[in-house]
Structure formats: C-alpha cells, structure tokens
C-alpha cells in the first residue's frame, strides 16, 4: 500500500487526535512539496517565523497563480462582502487593522480588555455554577463554547440571544478554513459558505445601522463611527471586519480553553499547582499556545516572487502552508519540545502567529483562558477525563475536541 502524501495525512481526520508524530516527520523536510499544485509545507520554527515577517509573502488570494486556485477564490467565497483584513496585504490591511484596533486597544481604548476582568469572572462563575448537581459535564458545550461567545457578543454589541442564529452561519464559514473541505469543495459547499457569509453580513448590517444612529459603548459602534486619522471604514468594510471579529473572537478561544483543560487533566501535577496558585495560569496559557495551539496551520500564504528557503525555491504564486503547531515543537528551537512544561524559560511560541497578521485578539484570548482554567482548577473537585482522546472537531486548521466529557466529585 502506498502512503498518502504527508500533507494529506495531516488533514485526514484519522490523525486529528494526535498529529504531532506527523509534524515530526514533516520537519525532516524543511520545505515539503509533494504534489503538483499542492502546497509548499514549511514546518520549522525559524523558517515559519521568517516567512511571517517576509514582505514577499502575501495573504491575498489574488496573488495565487491561476493553476493553484482551488475554486474558492475571493470572488466565490466572500458572499458579496470584501475580504477581511486577514486576507489583505498592506497598505489596505494596515489601514483596516488600525481602525479595528483603535476600537479595541491603546491608545484609544487602553483598558477595554483589562476592564472586562470582573465581567469575565462573573460569566465564568455563572457557567460553573450552572453545572449544578451534575457529576459529569461536556466542557465544550457547557463551558468552553458559551464563555467566549458571551464575551465577544458583549464586546461587539451583538445580542447574546441571537447566538443560535449566527452559529448556523458561522459553522459553514469555519468549515471553509479547513484545507480538506476546501479540496473536496463541491458547488453546494461553496454556495452554502457564500450564503452564510451574506446572511451573517446582513444580520450584522442591521446592528451596525442601529449603532450608527445610536452609538453605544461597544466595538460595533466604534467601527461604525470611526473617525481617526485613517478615516472611516465603508459599510462593507465594517461588516467584513465584524464578521472576522465575531468568528475569530470565539472559535479559537474555545479550542484554547478545551485543549488547555485536556492538557491539564493529562498533567494532574500541573493542575494541582494551578489550584493552589491561580497566578500560574499566565505561564500555563503561554505554554499551551506553544504545546497545543488552537490554530495549527496558516494555509493562506502565497509568495509574490520566487523565494529561496533552505535550498528550495518556492515559485512565485505558490500556496504556502505554515505549520504553526509543528514549529512550536521544533527541537531546533525548544528543549524537549514534546514536554508540556509551564516552567520553561522562554516560551516564544507561534501560537498567535507573528508579523503584521499576528493575532489581534491575543490579550483577550489570554485573559479569558487564564480565568477559565484557574477557575475550573479551583472549583472542580477531583476532575477526571471520561474519554481519552476525546472526539475531535473535523477541522485541521482550527483543531480541538468537539466534546470534552469531564467527571468530578462536586463543586467547590
């Protein structure tokens, strides 16, 4: 039997629970190109970092050579909305990201995230109290998903009760990020994605319109009424930014929290230390972002000229996959990379990416996960994994358990 190409084994669901041995194999060939028209897969820490800062590497699908286009190019995918800044290059990217950033962080909103601490604590307490007398919960459905969703809704100014509606649009959109679904893209799939994006856009348009008239203290209002040195966003830009923030604002954190609890349950001594010292959550979250990053692959890069990397030339217009999770466990960069060790001296992971597209929501994601994990550690009595490994979500890019059943003796 011939082995499938490595990059296909990675997207193969069968390997979802533990892709790390495959990543180890990947790193043996620093620039792996297995199939005509297939991606150039880059998996070592320093190479990924270099490419994330390389001004010859584009995030704009328009720069893909025609032969590499997988039929899900911009025009098809967007459902009428322009691409978000995540899929744009400078200077457009910079302009939109700056406006969006001014709604989130310093200098315009220096404490918007930090001020949410009390509120985050409250949401977490409420969710854990909600476990009631149960002695077993699905941590994804009952905690790791509702928590960040509630937070991003509050922050953006999206009514929490609308969650079931937007979830039905978000799920197909998230599926488009999965290289495997993309490859098998049938017209039906493309159509659903387009429609979802359009529906979500229309839904948000209603909210934005209202905020234009009556601004409130939320990010949608700030986006709709931005008047900084960069001028205002157009309505369409506001919408694609809002779609991005809504999706990115929770899809990744769910996995970070779930991967986090899974890892802690597999390392009970660390869980015990966290129970005694909530301050350890800062280091634990950083190490998690290295050890089990929620975004495992950045599959959306293209080079605008031939690039030479470790003796291989990546031709102009090729698709490049940056294997974040493989880089994070590169022994060239980290001692004992496969060991989960929050006491590590320098945890300069690629979990939030690096360069101009580095994760915008990092401060929020960090804070949410620190609070979530330390509170779970503190309150669950004698928590145990019911199933190891747990069932995974299909996505190879946004990787994490679909369910995480945890048994415990009671709540503290």
């Amino acid at each position: 039997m011939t082995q499938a190409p490595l990059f296909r084994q990675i997207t193969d669901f069968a390997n979802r629970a533990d892709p790390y041995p495959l990543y180890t194999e990947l790193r043996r060939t620093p620039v792996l190109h297995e199939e005509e028209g297939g991606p150039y897969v880059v998996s070592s820490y320093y190479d990924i970092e270099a490419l994330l800062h390389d001004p010859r590497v584009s995030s704009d699908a328009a720069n893909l050579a025609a032969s590499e286009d997988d039929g899900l190019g911009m025009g098809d995918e967007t459902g009428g909305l322009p691409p978000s800044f995540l899929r744009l290059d400078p200077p457009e990217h910079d302009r939109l990201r700056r406006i969006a950033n001014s709604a989130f962080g310093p200098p315009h909103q220096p404490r918007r995230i930090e001020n949410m601490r009390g509120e985050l604590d409250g949401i977490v307490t409420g969710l854990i109290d909600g476990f009631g007398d149960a002695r077993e919960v699905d941590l994804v459905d009952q905690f790791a998903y509702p928590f960040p969703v509630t937070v991003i809704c509050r922050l953006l100014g999206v009514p929490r009760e609308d969650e079931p509606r937007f979830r039905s649009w978000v799920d197909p959109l998230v599926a488009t990020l999965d290289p495997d679904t993309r490859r098998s893209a049938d017209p039906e799939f493309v159509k659903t994605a387009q429609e979802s994006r359009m529906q979500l856009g229309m839904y948000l348009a209603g909210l934005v319109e209202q905020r234009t008239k009556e601004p409130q203290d939320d990010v949608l209002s700030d986006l709709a009424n931005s008047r900084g040195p960069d001028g205002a966003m157009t309505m369409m830009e506001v919408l694609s930014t809002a779609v991005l923030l809504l999706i990115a604002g929770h899809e990744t954190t769910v996995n970070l929290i779930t991967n986090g609890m899974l890892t802690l349950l597999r390392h009970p001594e660390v869980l015990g230390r966290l129970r005694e010292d909530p301050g350890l959550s800062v280091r634990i979250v950083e190490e998690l972002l290295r050890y089990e990053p929620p975004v495992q692959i950045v599959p959306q890069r293209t080079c605008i000229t031939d690039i030479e990397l470790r003796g291989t030339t990546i031709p102009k217009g090729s698709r490049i996959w940056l294997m974040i999770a493989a880089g994070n466990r590169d022994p060239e960069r980290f001692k004992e990379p496969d060991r989960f060790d929050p006491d590590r001296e320098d945890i300069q992971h690629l979990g939030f990416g690096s360069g101009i597209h580095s994760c915008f929501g990092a401060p929020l994601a960090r804070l949410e996960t620190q609070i979530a994990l330390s509170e779970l550690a503190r309150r669950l009595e004698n928590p145990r994994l019911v199933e190891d490994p747990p069932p995974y979500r299909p996505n190879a890019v946004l990787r994490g358990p679909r369910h995480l059943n945890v048994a415990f003796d009671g709540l503290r």
Partner: protein
Amino acid sequence: MPADHVEWIRREGRIVIVGASLAGLRAAETLRAEGFTGELTLIGDEPYEPYDRPPLSKAALLGMASPRHTELPHRREIDAKWRLGVPASGLDLSAKRVRLADGDEVEYDRLLIATGVRARPWPKEAEARLDGVFLLRTRDDATRLLQKLKAGPRRVFIIGAGFAGCEVASACREMGLQVTMAERAGAPLVGALGGVIGAVAADLQTENGVDLRTRVTVTALEGDTSGRVRAVHLSDESVVEADVVVVSLGSLRNTEWLTGSGLGAGPRGIACDAGCRAFDFRGIVTDDVFVAGDVARSPHALFGYQFLSLEHWGNAVAQAETAAHNMICRGADRRPHLWTPAFWSSQFRVNIKSVGVPPMGDQIMITQGSLAERRFVGVYGYQGRVIAAVSFDNNRWLEFYRRQIERGAPFPVEFPTMDRRPEGRQPVPADFPDPSLPTHGPTVTLSGYSPADQQLVFTPARH
C-alpha cells in the same frame, strides 16, 4: 591546569559586576542560569535596584509609568551581594581588586564591567547649574524633570535633536507644553538615520507643534538673578525665553574610575574582543576582565570588524549574556558577541525601529510604504550590500531585513515587496552629514539563529 581553573571558578569563584543596571543584572542572571554557584557581588553607584531607562523619556514623562516604578523584572533568583549607592573608584588588575569610593575593596576572580554611559552635561558649568536645566539619564533625573514639567512651565527648550531629545519633545507636546528644539545639523535624527529620514522626523516635529530650529547651536544659557534659567541664546543671534532646558547632547562613557588601571579604557569606552574580554592599554586581551553594555566597544564581524559602541537596550542584554557565558566557559565553548544592532524609539505615537548600522550606509531606498505617509521601511546600502534598515510604524517587517543584513544580501533591493511604491524603486543618497565609511574588505555573513549556533561565513574579497 586552565581547564580545572574554569571549573573551579564556576563552582566557587568570586565574580564581581560593576554597574548594577540592565547589563549587570542580565549578566548576573545568566551566570546563575548557566550554573555559576560561587560568590556574586553587584556594585552600583545608584541607590536603586536595576531599573529600565527607555521609559524615562517616554511613558514616565507622560505619567503613564512612574519613574520610580520602572524596575527591571528579575528573570531568576541571583543570590548576590548588592553594594548599591557606592561607586567603584579604582581597579587593581594584578591584585584583582575593585576599590570602592567608601574605601572598601572587593576581590574577584572574574570581573564584569558594565558601567554604561552618562548624559553629556552642558559644557559651561555655571550655566549648567542654573535651576531649570536638566539632563535625562537616571531615574532621579526623570523624577525631577517630570515634577518641573507638571508645574506647567511656559516653554521647554531642548538642546539636541537626537533620539532622546525628540522623545522629550514628543512627551512635552503631549502634555500640552510649548517646546523649542535646537539642532546643529539640518534635521533631527540625522546622525543616526541620515538626511532622507531626518526630513521625515523634522516634519513630524513641526506638525506636532514643536518650534524646530536647525543648523543652529546654542551659545549660552541665561539665568535670572535668583539663578533660574530664563532664556537660551542661539548662534543665529536669536534668543528664546524658556524656563526649562533639557540638555540632550549625547553621552560620556563611565570609564574615569579605570584611569591608571592599565585597562584599555578611555573616552570611547572599553575595547574588548568579540568574546567581551577587555583589552589592556597595550591592546592585549585580559583573561578575567569582561565588558558589556553601553560602555563596551567591540569589533563586529558584519561591519568590517569595526569597533562599535552601541547605546542600545538590546545590545546591553545580548552582550551581558554572552559575557556571562564566556566568563565561566573554557576557550572552545566561548561565543562571539554577534548581535545585530537594533534600536527602537517612539515619538508622537510613531514607532521607529532600526536594525544594522544605518550611518554606515551611503544609499537608502524605501522598500515598503511611503515617506509621505510616515509609514515605511527604508533599507540602507553600502557597497552593494544591505547594511541597515529603518521603519516608521512598520516594525513588524524588520525581522526580515535583519536576516538580509546578516546574510549580506545585495543592495539595491531588486525583488518585489508588498506595498512597494514607485518612489522606492531607486536608491538615493542616504545623506549622512559625515559618513565615516569603513574600508572595503572581504564579506562576512552570519548564519544560524540562536546565539549558541550562530556562525560566521567568510567570503574572500573578489578582485
């Protein structure tokens, strides 16, 4: 046996560090991290535990961080004897002793000198003593200056438009104060970044309301009868009334205490080899005296083995780590200090960063963004090589240019880059006032990523 000697020093030797600031602290931490278990002493003339200086001309002046609270975070326990508030006053190389101003003496087996630099004072002493005339180097300087600025002076006059001067101007404007800044060259930052970038810096200053006077020098500071500064006289015969004067004329190296010690220490710093070992005045390398940080002058392979003195935060950290490593290592395990110079600044909310040695460049091209928008990356070239790069509000790309410098990548930059504008297709003269170009030699490049595995690749000159 020398090998055993090193092992002995590691285990029970006495290491003394003079200069208890950034480089001193990081060296101490590295020594412990790498297994030094002997006696460690840190000597510092300031009465404080090591603190961070960059915020003193930025956040601290804006009241966003108190100048009293910029302590450097400790990376680990260092279990050291601290001798704070007492300067070292002399060094006996043969007896291996540091003399302290209070008469004490401290013996060492290995010594690290990290005494940094101090601000160059206004040369006319009587004028420098006027109330309202400030320098900015230490926490105490910042505290005093901040207090004065908070009292709402009518005008602040800044002498010298280098990085520090520009940062102070920016902070003062943000506090709503009237500011005049005088500079001998044609624009701010010209010495560090050249005239092309200096012009951008000049626009930045004037647009933000700074009264910028270029191509002038200050001739005198005038005080009133009660000894307070009240006006500044300029070489163009103009007089500017000001009640605060910040003297920002660069720095002097803290080497006087080494006079007569036989060490190769002078106004240009302490020369050392690539492994941070100090030279004596005969140019012979010592084996037990090491140097790191602003006070050091060390040869850099990437830049023609010129002796560079860098007043850069990152250099102080990297050099301290290398020095500490080498202090407790055998010869073959020692590492060269191959840090690629990098510097950052922030003024008027613009984030400026440079890598490499811009003043060595004779040409510049804008490879990303545009000067007019003040968001760009400029690349400096010297004799067909990329030698430095600078960014305004574009610092996330600089990592790439650092690798280009380290690899000796060709200049001009021919390949396409994102956001390349027509103005950036051709190199133009970088316009440094007094280019001190190194002589042309063979090409040396860096390979490897971490300090531990960086290697030099030597390409002989082609004739």
